[in-house]
């Protein structure tokens, strides 16, 4: 049963969650309205699993390390050899879970609602890479980490899922909700020298 | 051995210091000894000294693969205290602290034991509880220990920040006033000199490469200087304990890890107390030379590399600056590492091995400098008599079989 109640952002104390970033230039940070999030576990060498998941998601499960697949309304991030994070519209998770469970039947898999588990922070702008590099040890050079890639890693001592969306570059930083305020403060601090701004709600 | 004193210094000044004796004899190995102590760190040297002094056994060799004191004895943050939780531990460490109190005079070598107090900070309710528990236990065991409020902490250590608006504010602390620091190298050198004077052979640059046994008994050691016979052998090789045990075909419940420390550039006195914090994990003192001596954490992985990772130091500094924001502009002069032998219960092993007449003293992990005299004293007893002293009996290797561990990790820090 989907519920239509509004979803509170994890950093609502500091800034309201937004649904999109204005495409203006400059370095900008925002929290996105918490999307529907579904954690999927299963064995990718089991064709039944792949078929079932693919049929519901309407796209391939990304089986290559650190890759992302997406359609118009969902994004699937590779988290590990038997784990994926599926992002969908806020509220869309309930139906998605039901359909996944139905399609998977008795295939050994796990479908779990994690919509509340993580906040989705979005950092965009020319200096975004430098900001991240202050706290994240991944090589984010455009030839090493591109739009359409993701990674589970750490930033400023916080475990994150990093997802590059475009070449602006824009990144989604998915962070455990309880760590979101800290991560937000850290990002704001790291952006300061580049004159970064917070997206207006 | 000529006596050290201000008078001998003045006298020697007249002869331009040409007449000083060697501190210890550099001996060539004899064919055999009554006792061979493997490892020329503080513990090994103290063992040899007490074998000679307390048990009259002087046909002893200390065999060191490198230079005396070059192991953890030469690279520790020199904190000395006896404020351990369990009766067994506090008794052993207190024996050691007592020996330290008269050690400069006993060895006629100033080890600069400085009883400037050791303070353990509490940053949360769990720390407070555990601190109280320890203070009370120590007091009942007759060991000095007291609880300090945060205001008392500030009065005792003016440089510290007790602002309650920091991430982990200070809620109080335990203090052991008799704790402090000593000049670590001097402990090794002082024992070496005193042991040598009593007839102990000190053999440096000689690595033990095998432990020869006959019918389950030890008969001597293979070394880079050849075979040396022995009636009894004591292994006191800290980070290398497992390597030596393997030579005698047994395993130990010990893992070797890098532990790091660092010093700042020397500055005028600013910190008079040893300050430790488990919660934010840092410990710091200021040496008599002026540098801040700071302990870092241990790297998670096994290593014999005598060096650690930089991120351990990074973590340390955040913690240090929380406690002492004014140190931010001071600079790290040098960082280094040692190889510590960590036991599952964070307590040492002192006693027999599966091989007859082969004894072991290890597992001191990150905290054995403070135990140096006591450890040597009980280990000498164990080797000389073939039986542990009451003080080290609980620290036998077989506690891992019986399950009678002496867990000094402190409480597993969690709460609902």
């Amino acid at each position, binding site marked *: 049963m989907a519920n239509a109640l509004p979803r509170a952002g994890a950093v609502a104390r500091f800034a309201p969650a937004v649904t999109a970033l204005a495409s203006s230039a400059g370095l900008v940070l925002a929290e996105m309205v918490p999307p529907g999030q579904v954690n999927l576990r299963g064995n*990718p*060498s089991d*064709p039944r699993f*792949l*078929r079932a998941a*693919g*049929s519901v*998601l*309407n*796209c*391939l*499960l*990304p*089986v*290559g*390390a*650190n*890759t*992302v*697949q*997406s*359609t118009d309304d969902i*994004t699937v991030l590779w*988290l*590990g*050899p*038997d*784990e994926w994070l599926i992002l969908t519209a806020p509220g869309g998770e309930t139906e998605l879970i039901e359909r996944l469970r139905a399609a998977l039947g008795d295939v050994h898999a796990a479908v779990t609602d994690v919509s509340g588990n993580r906040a989705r922070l979005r950092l965009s702008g020319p200096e975004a890479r430098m900001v991240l590099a202050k706290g994240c*040890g*991944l090589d984010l050079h455009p030839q090493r980490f591109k*739009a*359409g*890639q993701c*990674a*589970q*890693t*750490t930033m400023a001592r916080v*475990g994150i899922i990093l*997802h590059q*969306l475009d070449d602006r570059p824009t990144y989604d930083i998915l962070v455990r909700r309880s760590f979101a305020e800290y991560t937000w403060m850290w990002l704001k601090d790291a952006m300061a020298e580049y004159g970064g701004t917070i997206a207006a709600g | 051995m000529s006596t050290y004193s201000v008078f001998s210094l003045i006298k020697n000044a007249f002869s331009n210091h040409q007449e000083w004796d060697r501190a210890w004899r550099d001996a060539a190995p004899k064919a055999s000894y009554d006792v061979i102590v493997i490892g020329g760190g503080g513990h090994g040297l103290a063992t040899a000294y007490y074998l000679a002094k307390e048990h009259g056994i002087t046909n002893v060799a200390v065999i060191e693969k490198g230079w005396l004191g070059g192991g953890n004895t030469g690279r520790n943050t020199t904190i000395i205290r006896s404020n351990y939780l369990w009766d067994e531990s506090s008794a052993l460490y207190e024996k050691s602290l007592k020996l330290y109190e008269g050690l400069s005079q006993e060895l006629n070598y100033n080890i600069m034991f400085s009883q400037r107090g050791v303070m353990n900070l509490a940053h949360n309710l769990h720390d407070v509880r555990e601190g109280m528990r320890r203070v009370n236990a120590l007091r009942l065991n007759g060991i000095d220990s007291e609880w300090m409020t945060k205001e008392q902490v500030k009065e005792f250590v003016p440089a510290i920040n007790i602002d309650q608006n920091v991430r982990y504010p200070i809620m109080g602390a335990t203090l052991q006033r008799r704790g402090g620091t000593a000049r670590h190298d001097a402990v090794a050198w002082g024992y070496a000199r005193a042991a040598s004077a009593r007839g102990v052979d000190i053999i440096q640059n000689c690595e033990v490469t095998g432990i020869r046994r006959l019918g389950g008994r030890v008969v001597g050691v293979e070394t880079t200087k050849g075979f040396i016979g022995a009636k009894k052998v004591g292994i006191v090789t800290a980070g*290398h304990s*497992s390597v030596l045990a*393997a030579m005698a075909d047994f*395993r*130990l*419940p*010990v*893992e*070797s890890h890098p532990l790091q420390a660092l010093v700042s550039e020397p500055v005028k006195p600013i910190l008079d107390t040893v300050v430790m914090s488990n919660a934010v994990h840092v410990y710091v003192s200021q040496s008599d030379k002026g540098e801040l001596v700071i302990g870092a954490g241990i790297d*998670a*992985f*096994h*290593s*014999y*590399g005598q060096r650690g990772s930089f*991120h351990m130091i990074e973590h340390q500094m955040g913690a240090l600056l929380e406690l002492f924001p004014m140190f931010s502009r001071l600079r790290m002069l040098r960082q280094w590492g040692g190889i510590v032998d960590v036991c*599952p219960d964070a307590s040492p092993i002192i006693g027999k091995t599966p091989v007859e007449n082969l004894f072991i003293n290890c597992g001191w992990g990150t905290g054995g400098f403070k135990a140096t005299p006591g450890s040597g004293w009980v280990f000498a007893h164990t080797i000389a008599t073939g039986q542990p002293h009451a003080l080290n009996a609980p620290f036998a290797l077989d506690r*891992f*079989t*019986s399950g009678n561990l002496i867990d000094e990790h402190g409480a597993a820090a969690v709460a609902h």
Partner: protein
Amino acid sequence: MLLINCPWCGPRDETEFSYGGEAHRVRPADPSALTDEQWADFLFMRTNPKGAHKERWVHSHGCRRWFNVERHTVTHQILNVYPPASAPQPVQDIEAANGDAAPASSQKGARS
């Protein structure tokens, strides 16, 4: 800061991983059949070699998988990295791995 090549995620900084000690220790199938000595040996005794060491790591801040590493304990050089046989093996050929799993209409590739 070691650089550890996670069999699944690729090379990452050591701080993303947790160390799990000696590898290939197998929990006895029936602990109650062991003597106290044998149990103690399993619980506590370690080889702790100076030199090549087979050890376990888990990619805690990444894919959360355990795997084995052979590393020299003096130079810290990593000699070998290998996942346990039972683990899902890293995908080499992405096309083949997906097979005919998904409807052809959605073969869009990464474009997010």
